[in-house]
């Protein structure tokens, strides 16, 4: 049963990720990115990380994917649908990916012996205690980063006034 769940979620995640990377139409890429992020949320659920699952759905699928869709629709022209979307360096990029895979392969197969021992526990209450106790300082730092990003986004997207 868990194998069926894992392989179907993997198929959804990987096929939609390939679509994100390879499709010509950026709008289709953005829609498939939403599907891929939802699949990753499913992977989190299969790993027993319930709070991570819900925040992935809320922040990534509900926030980031929608924001990307808005920007894609605001910044494109219909003539771009016929343009090539992959640059000239795709062969070099493929080589870089192959080399990176060779580096990671050893660790993947070394880690293969670990198996599940316990059934998953709900994590939300413990996460709240951790974030407001031991991890309070990084938590506040992240809220500072979010405020800075908010202000930065407003500053960058403000229409520039011409000097008289």
């Amino acid at each position, binding site marked *: 049963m868990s194998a069926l769940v894992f392989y179907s979620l993997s198929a959804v995640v990987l096929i939609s990720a390939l679509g994100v990377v390879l499709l010509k139409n950026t709008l289709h890429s953005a829609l498939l990115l939403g599907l891929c992020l939802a699949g990753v949320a499913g*992977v989190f659920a299969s*790993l027993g990380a319930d709070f991570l699952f819900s925040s992935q759905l809320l922040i*990534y699928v509900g926030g980031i994917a929608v924001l*990307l869709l808005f920007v894609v629709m605001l910044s494109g022209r219909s003539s771009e649908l016929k343009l090539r979307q992959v640059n000239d*360096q795709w062969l070099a990029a493929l080589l870089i*990916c192959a080399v990176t895979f060779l580096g990671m392969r050893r660790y993947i197969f070394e880690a293969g012996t*670990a198996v599940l021992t316990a059934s998953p526990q709900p994590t939300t209450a413990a996460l709240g205690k951790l*974030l407001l106790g031991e991890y309070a300082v990084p938590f506040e730092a992240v809220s500072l980063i979010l405020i800075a990003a908010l202000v930065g*986004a407003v500053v960058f997207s403000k229409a520039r006034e011409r000097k008289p």
Partner: protein
Amino acid sequence: MTLAHYLALSAALFLIGLFGALTRRNIIGILMGIELMFNAANINLAAFNRFLHPEGIVGSAVALFVIAVAAAEIVVGLALVLAIYRSQNTVYAEDISLLKG
């Protein structure tokens, strides 16, 4: 399912995202590739937490921080894309060559 299955899934997702970030011409496409790489890292964190420290939750906490920082990054990045599009009228990375003078 062993840990290696999840690591292989996350490695594949990371490589797809890396390929997209390196080859897309559109800045929005590059940002999407970066998002895929963030998600691969988060799968790794959740998988290590579940398999190696099933009684702990620090992996989930770190993944939450990654999600928050990725959200901040994508917001600023998209605001920059819109600002560039307004002033340069393009979203293609090779056309943005103002620093060449």
